[in-house]
């Protein structure tokens, strides 16, 4: 009985709410309304950009946060100006932000005849949306943990209080469940600062990426391949710089392997050296990007169907996905740190006979 009742309600709900949308459609049908392009909408949100788009007004006017553009061009040196100057494809100082084509989203040097100067591409060090989001995350992380460190000066060795009760378990988690089991009690201390930094950096960025609004939040930082690449490189260098004799011996003269096999084994081991951080890079990037894409796709459903009736369903799914993403945010920070610890642990382990 109850179920029938519920479906009946849903039916009424659907019919009531789809009428205005339909009538609006028929009303504006003659004006050849712009078709909603979900894929470009999603990509626009997860890709990096030189301005931080907040919303579009009814009269097509964009409201966005203008970010500083920093360019280095071989010919003319350093240029710093607001991204406002490049809005809507305007040229400024011979630079142009490409709106379409292969170079979409990139700032190029324009020749006097209006074509792109391919031989003289400027290096783009702009504070983009992603960079700003990352800076905010770093500042929040610094603020939280410097406050934590400062709080110990006041309380000393007393039971955790206030901020300590909230942040200390994270520190202890990284130490007791990530560093010590994988690196060993003796050597874990040396890598704790790095592992903690990576964990907190990724975690805060993941979490901030889940908050859609306002500007320092909602940037797709850990879903940007450049950022995961740098983090993976840090782990790569941590491994190589701390690898002991045993580690290098296993790469260049794996014990128990006949000499004639070494020409095959060494390249394999070298690939292994690179594939480990490569996997770290792709895993974090793909997981976070995928999460953003799914949430945005669910939101897009409302606009694809052009019906408010989809909104409750959409919102329900988005809430569900956001809960899942919350888990993923922690999980991916954990996995990245865990695997970094594991690889470092493998590189510093004492040779046992």
């Amino acid at each position, binding site marked *: 009985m109850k179920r029938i009742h519920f479906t009946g309600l849903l039916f009424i709900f659907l019919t009531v709410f789809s009428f205005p949308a339909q009538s609006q459609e028929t009303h504006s049908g003659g004006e050849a309304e712009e078709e909603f392009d979900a*894929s470009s909408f999603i*990509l626009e949100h*997860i*890709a*990096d950009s030189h301005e931080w788009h907040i919303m579009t007004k009814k009269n097509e006017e964009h409201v966005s946060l203008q970010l500083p553009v*920093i360019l280095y061009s071989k010919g003319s040196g350093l240029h710093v100006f607001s991204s406002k100057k490049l809005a809507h494809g305007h040229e400024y100082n011979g630079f142009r932000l490409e709106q379409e084509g*292969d170079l*979409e*989203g*990139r700032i190029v040097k324009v020749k006097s005849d209006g074509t792109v100067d391919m031989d003289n591409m400027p*290096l*783009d*060090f*702009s*504070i*983009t949306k*992603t*960079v700003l989001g*990352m*800076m905010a995350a*770093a500042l929040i*992380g*610094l603020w939280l*943990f*410097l406050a*934590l*460190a400062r709080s*110990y*000066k006041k309380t*000393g*060795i007393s039971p955790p209080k206030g901020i300590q009760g909230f942040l*200390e378990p994270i*520190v*202890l988690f990284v*130490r007791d469940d990530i560093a010590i089991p994988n690196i060993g009690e003796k050597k874990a*201390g040396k890598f*704790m*600062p*790095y592992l*903690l*930094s990576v964990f*907190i*950096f990724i975690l805060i960025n993941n979490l901030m990426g889940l908050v859609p609004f306002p500007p320092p939040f909602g940037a797709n930082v850990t879903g*940007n*391949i*450049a*950022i995961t*690449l*740098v*983090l993976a490189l*840090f782990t790569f260098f941590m491994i190589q710089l701390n690898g002991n004799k045993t580690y290098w011996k296993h790469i260049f003269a794996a014990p128990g392997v006949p000499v004639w096999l070494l020409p095959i084994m060494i390249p394999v081991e070298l690939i292994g050296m690179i594939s480990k951080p490569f996997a770290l890079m792709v895993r974090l990037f793909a997981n976070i*990007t995928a999460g953003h894409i799914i949430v945005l796709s669910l939101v897009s459903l409302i606009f694809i169907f052009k019906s408010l009736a989809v909104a409750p369903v959409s919102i329900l799914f988005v809430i569900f996905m956001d809960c899942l993403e919350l888990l993923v945010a922690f999980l991916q920070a954990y996995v990245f740190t865990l695997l970094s610890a594991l690889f470092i642990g493998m590189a510093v382990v004492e040779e046992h006979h």
Partner: protein
Amino acid sequence: MILASNSLTTPAIGTLFWTVVIFTIFFLVLTKFAWKPILNMVKQREEMIKGSLASAEKARKEMVKLQSDNEAILKKAREERESILKEAREVRDKMIAEAKGKASEEADKIVEKARTGIEREKALALADIREQVANLSVDIASKLLGERLSQTGEQGKLIDHYLKDIDLKKN
């Protein structure tokens, strides 16, 4: 197709640069001013807790030991009391026995003394009686027999002889 047409999978140099800068600063500043003090303090606290637990355990063990010591002392004291009591009982019994022995001995002595006294008195009394009886007999006999008896010594001897018989019979 989507990925190929987009900058998603091609790392941008600017982002790389800023990530290196931001993460390096983040890492170094936190290492110096946060991770080290935090980890130190946490370690100190853990050591303190460990130390306190260890000393509590030690104290507990000591108390158990003390308790068992106490019990042992108590047991020993009880045993000692027992033995002292036993000894006292023995001494008392011995003293009583000794006293009893001495008393009976003394009584015997007294009785003996009394008996010898009585014996002596009796002998004296008998001798006295015998003399008196002899005298009486002589008196009676002399009164009865008169001169006849005084003249003949043989008669006196006879009387003496009879008296002796009487005496012996009495004894």
